[in-house]
């Protein structure tokens, strides 16, 4: 069975654009180096929101603290590149651009016409189109089976999973990671940690399973599953069967000042999850160099479902004459 994935959609507030345009006018000018951004997504919404504080211009703000600001969401880390001319935007090699940004969750290519207050932008969520097999080809992952996780104890213990994820969020200052791995501690307790913390010896542990947050509003497979499968190829897990949990938690904002967070039991029951099994027998371990030869995908389609950018006109938000007319 071939897996298909639900692409993410972007929603960018006028605050974000206004902040970016001010920065372009007053600070960046012709400097078109990418700026760091954070996209926020509520599990299951399918929409990545870029808000005013998504654009990180203050070097003194630690990125982790910015993430905590909206810890009821999963944060996507990436960048925005603001090119100087319409021609630069058009002539940019989009395939190469994605390769350059293959290690980011999200990227936005933008051109802002400051005179007419129009912005042309094209968001992307870079990922590998499939898994790299021993033959060097890029193919769909070998999907074996799917099962539900439940609260009743007959299937998977979802309540145990909720507790472990809450604990992980507390340890990373409220940030809700979109990828993680879960394992049984020596005392039999389910624990979770960030993928960046995984050690080679952990991979031989039979209880280890990998997880991604469900970003899809439908039952279809989320984009985060796709990026997780790409990431898993960088680990040495060839010739195995791996469990990947697609997890849809109910996230609540954590008040880190209190240091403690008590999950509301009623809300805890709204989480849902399912487990997909994959065979990795024909995968090869990939490195960034291996991926050099693989065309990355992930450009968002426009409103007409075509491979093209979108535009927004902020005249009504920026032009003083328009503002006066509207509010008169």
């Amino acid at each position, binding site marked *: 069975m*071939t*897996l*298909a*994935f*639900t692409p993410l*959609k*972007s*929603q960018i*507030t*006028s*605050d974000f*654009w*206004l*902040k970016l345009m001010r920065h372009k006018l007053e600070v960046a000018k012709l400097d078109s180096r990418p700026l760091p951004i954070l996209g926020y997504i509520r599990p299951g919404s399918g*929409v990545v*929101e870029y808000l*005013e*504080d998504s654009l990180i211009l203050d070097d003194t703000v630690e990125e982790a603290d910015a993430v905590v*600001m909206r810890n*009821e969401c999963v944060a996507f880390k990436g960048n925005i590149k603001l090119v100087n001319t319409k021609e630069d*935007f*058009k002539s940019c090699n*989009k*395939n190469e651009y994605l390769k350059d940004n293959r290690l980011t969750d999200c990227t936005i290519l933008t051109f802002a016409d400051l005179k*007419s207050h*129009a912005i*042309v932008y*094209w968001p992307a969520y870079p990922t590998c*189109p*499939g898994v790299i097999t021993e033959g060097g080809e890029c193919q*769909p992952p070998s999907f074996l089976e799917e099962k539900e996780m439940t609260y009743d104890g007959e299937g998977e213990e979802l309540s145990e999973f909720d507790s472990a994820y809450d604990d992980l969020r507390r340890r990373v200052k409220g940030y809700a990671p979109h990828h993680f791995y879960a394992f049984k501690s020596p005392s039999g307790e389910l624990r979770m940690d960030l993928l960046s913390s995984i050690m080679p010896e952990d991979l031989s542990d039979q209880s280890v399973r990998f997880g991604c947050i469900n970003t899809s509003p439908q039952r*279809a497979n989320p984009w985060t599953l*796709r990026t997780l499968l790409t990431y898993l190829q960088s680990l040495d897990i060839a010739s195995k069967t791996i469990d990947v949990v697609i997890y849809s938690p*109910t996230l*609540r*904002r954590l*008040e880190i000042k209190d240091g403690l967070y008590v999950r509301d039991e009623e*809300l805890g029951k709204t989480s849902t999850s399912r487990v997909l099994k994959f065979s990795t027998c024909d995968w090869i371990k990939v490195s960034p160099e291996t991926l050099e030869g693989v*065309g*990355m*995908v992930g*450009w968002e*389609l426009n*409103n007409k*479902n*075509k*491979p*093209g*950018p*979108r*535009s*927004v*006109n*902020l*005249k*009504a*938000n920026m032009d003083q004459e328009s*503002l006066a007319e*509207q*509010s008169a």
Partner: protein
Amino acid sequence: MTSFLKNVRESLTPTLKQTAFLERGVLTPEEFVKAGDELIFKCPTWSWEAASDESKSRSHLPPNKQYLITRNVPCKERCSEMEKGASSMGMMKADADGWMVEDDGQGEDEDFDFVEGETDEGSKPAATTHPAPTTTVVDDDDDDEYADIADFEDDNLAADTAALTVSDNILAVRTYDMMISYDKYYQTPRVWLSGYSESRSPLTGEEMFEDCMSDYVKRTVTIEKFPYTSAVVISIHPCQHGNVMKNIVSNLTQGEGGGEIGIESYMFVFLKFVASMIPTINYDFTNAVDTGGASGK
């Protein structure tokens, strides 16, 4: 300039210290926070938000509880079009027997054909009384050379066969971010709305007015700069909120079987009252208000 003067006026107004909820329908900042906490507790789609930078923060409220927000509230149809439908359906005429019936705007021979224009909406009964929800992409300004950006499309992208395309059976609707701040001058909550089109682009003020009852547009509902960010949004002016809240609370508590109503219920009552001005913005999933009396809903 107006926003600046309003900010000055608000900063010069002393903070309300004594509760006057039952007497005047107003809140102290502490009561606003308490009512907001209750709203968030019962309706997790709402959350507190801080100002985008410290200079915009109000000292009479906790820094991390400056205003309430709920995001991506769906708005399936235009209020302005709903009003047109309601007004045409609201006209009465005498039927053949002398009884007053609603005038459908058609001749008597066309009793069953009261939909203007052609329709193939047999499976959508709502379309017989109201215009169909607007799901088309709103075009940008006619003068905007970027409104049609087909020449920016790129067919040379790497092929991706595993990405699902958007299904036609998903209804694209406008969405709103709804904010509630505390107005220190009027001592009541104040509602702000920031909308997005079906294609997830920010709406202009004029477009957002389409989702408000026309009686209030440019009178009670105006275009303003949201004081906690840089966004231009629409706002419902709070000058009458205190009086209306006082009357609603009075009716709830003094009617037959009425009981008491606490500060915790303020925001739930307030949201139901605000819905009368923006009836098509579907935000109100809050609970019924219990006054403790026999008819306290």
